């Protein structure tokens, strides 16, 4: 991907940069789940990337850089939220509109419903579930990222799973006229298809 000239390959900054560049897709995905808005998410991911770059002297090569950058991104997100809490209300609404208005014909129904359901969870449950259930982090790593105890993460993940299941089952979200049970049925069908493919 990035061209690494032989004479620069040993430079620790360059090694750091290569690893950071490799993490950008994951930072974008995590930011997307936090903000729910692709544009705001990329802004957040860029800020986090630059914070990580500026703080590279304090990073120890060989430790978990993915967890480290996720923690930076998360801190960035919440400190911005605190700074502009009025704005957050608006962002939340626009994020929900964005989530509702997903208009990609290639995106299956079930995925839209899952996005909606996810958006309805309390933020701390959503991030715990995303880190452990989608980001591939162990409970211990997710706990470090969120700055809480491991038991707290476990509890949040399990609450999130139950809540999400309930939301998808009884269709407590609003979606123009779609039958309530369809979301769960579509998710089940897709999961079956995917597990056959894998």
């Amino acid at each position, binding site marked *: 991907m990035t061209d690494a000239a032989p004479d620069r390959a040993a430079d620790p900054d360059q090694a750091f940069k290569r690893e950071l*560049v490799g993490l950008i897709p994951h930072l974008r*995905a995590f930011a997307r789940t936090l903000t729910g808005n692709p544009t705001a998410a*990329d802004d957040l991911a860029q800020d986090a990337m630059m914070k990580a770059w500026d703080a590279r002297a304090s990073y120890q090569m060989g430790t978990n850089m993915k967890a480290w950058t996720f923690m930076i991104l998360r801190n960035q997100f919440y400190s911005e939220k605190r700074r502009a809490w009025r704005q957050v209300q608006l962002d939340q609404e626009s994020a929900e509109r964005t989530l509702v208005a997903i208009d990609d014909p290639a995106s299956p129904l079930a995925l839209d419903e*899952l996005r909606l359901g996810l958006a309805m969870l309390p933020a701390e449950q959503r991030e715990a579930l995303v880190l452990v*259930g*989608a980001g591939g982090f162990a409970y211990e790593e997710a706990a470090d990222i969120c700055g809480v105890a491991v038991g707290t993460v*476990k509890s949040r993940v399990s609450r999130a799973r139950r809540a999400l299941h309930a939301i998808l089952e009884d269709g407590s979200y609003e979606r123009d006229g779609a039958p309530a049970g369809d979301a769960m049925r579509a998710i089940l069908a897709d*999961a079956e298809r995917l597990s056959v493919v894998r």
Partner: protein
Amino acid sequence: MGDEDQPRGQGPRRRNVEHMIDQQPTDPTRRGSAALDEARLRQHAIGVRLRQMFDEVVNEPVPDEFLDILRKADQTPPEKG
């Protein structure tokens, strides 16, 4: 944080990452076992979907902006402090 009551003694058992999404606080009574299997299947399906949703963004091409910003930053020395 009163809402963070943790399960005592009988927390979810640890399994490998692939199956973590299946974890459910299990009800030990047997009558509910068919319903339980169904619930587990559903949780698994949601888990698969969740990962797919996340991976969808991971697999998007990274906008040039990211690399441009990093390239520019590379020209300046790191901040102290």
